């Protein structure tokens, strides 16, 4: 029992955080290859912070250095941070498959 109050008292205190949730997702690491040639890249966007401009710059640079890389634009996937965010995310596996992409760039955190 901890003594009540007073300058000389010592307190045995407990941890104020809470247990970390078990990692239910397992190993979600997608396989990566160093080869870029022929890749088809899907662009996911939260429709914020000038992602369209950043994507445009990335696409332009990529077409110069790796002309056989193609892109699927963000409007194919919808806003990943809008009022229907949950639906967009739920549909994403299907839409990613349908659009045939093998890589994804997601933006923008700001």
């Amino acid at each position: 029992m901890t003594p009540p109050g007073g300058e000389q008292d010592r307190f045995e205190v407990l941890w104020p955080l809470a247990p970390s949730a078990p990692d239910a997702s397992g190993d979600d690491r997608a396989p990566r290859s160093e080869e870029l040639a022929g890749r088809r890249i899907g662009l996911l966007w939260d429709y914020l912070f000038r992602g369209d401009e950043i994507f445009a710059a990335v696409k332009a640079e990529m077409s110069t250095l790796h002309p056989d890389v193609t892109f699927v634009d963000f409007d194919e996937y919808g806003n990943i941070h809008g009022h229907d965010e949950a639906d967009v995310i739920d549909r994403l596996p299907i839409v990613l498959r349908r659009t045939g992409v093998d890589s994804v760039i997601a933006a923008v955190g700001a």
Partner: protein
Amino acid sequence: MAERCGIPSVAIASTGFMYQARVISQALGIPHVPVAEYPGTIPTDSSETLREKAVSAVFPVVVDGLRGLVAGVGEGDEVAEREPDPREVVFTGGLDDVQDYFEDRLWTDGLPVIPPTLDRVERFMAQTPREPDEVFGTLLPANREATVWSVAVNGVMAGCRPEYMPILVAMAEALSDPEFRIQDGGSTPGWEPLVTVSGPMVKRLGFNTKAGLMRVGPRANTSIGRFLRLYMRNVAGLLSPPGRTDKGSIGSGLNVAMGEDDDALEKIGWPPTRVEHGFAQEDDVVTVRSVYAISQPIYTSGHTAETHLAALAHIHATTVGPWIFTGIWFQRWAPLLLLNPAVAEVIAAEGLTKDDVRQYIYDHAQIGARWLDIWPHHVGGDEFELTKMIERGEAPPDFSRSTDPDRLVPTMMSPDELTIIVAGDPGRNQSRFYINNHEQGPPVSRRVTFT
């Protein structure tokens, strides 16, 4: 999600959000995903600067990230220490030593805490039939389980009385509801949580519902309000030192718990919020919500409803302002009017109901549509200009009655979004609005069960 589909991914974030990206990637089990850093502040860069940074800083990391040549944003961290058991003593020391120990670990809100000793925590647990390891939900960004035990520990620290425990449990349950979106508690608007309390417990536990009800002071209002923010820090992991997970650009001060004045309501025959929301008159109910902005004190005078309502509507419009564009964007809006009892009495004396007040505010609290086209640009969401949202069919009809950019549009999506709590100084005539942050922290209620 893409990684879970076997598709290698790279993300892009600006400098100020790299720490948050790291924590979130770990919480979601994708620490290996690289994040390309955009150096600086995106909204204030010129188009030329933005392109230059995208090419020189973002592009190389994107390419190497897709090729598997860049470490993930959440990789390489130190291995987490073993987490203590709930009843395990983590530190022993004097009062000042305990404060220092907690402060060093960011386990406080900056104020001294009551040391959470086992006997104190057990006194809280004795006030609830819930099992200590019952989990209400997993809270991001820390990815921690909101347990009954953690509620008791933080309740002790906040200075609550043990008899508040059922209220704290209900608050933690509401906070853990996915609808509340606790993961957005660190967004840049810097919203602050608010708990409102309604029911017989308000009087029984000594909540102040009269003059100065939103001031720090009375223990029930103050410690319960403090608990809410402390729980968001310690269990959800929303930490506010610069560079941490709470990205509130400025933020605001603590909201104490707001109590509803049942006596004032009974006098004028208006229902309390709990009854309006489907609970019974005899129920005790807590509601948690975000507060993005608080209006100025709204003095309204006169013995006719119209004079009061016109002033209230004007201040609502100026408080919400163009931020209503976010309500349309996320299809969620939930302002709160803390209505002075004397003012409510004048309004009710004309036979007007709470619904009439809501309708009046909706009809008269208006701003120029032009601002809803301008403001999204400042916030960083050009796609959410009102004109574009109207074109996409996302805005309610009252926002598109004409194409005149100077037309007046509402500052709510619909009248029924407005919560009206009657409380405050019955000897004066001052009310206030508390504006929530769209889908982030909408009002979520829970019944409180006392043993």
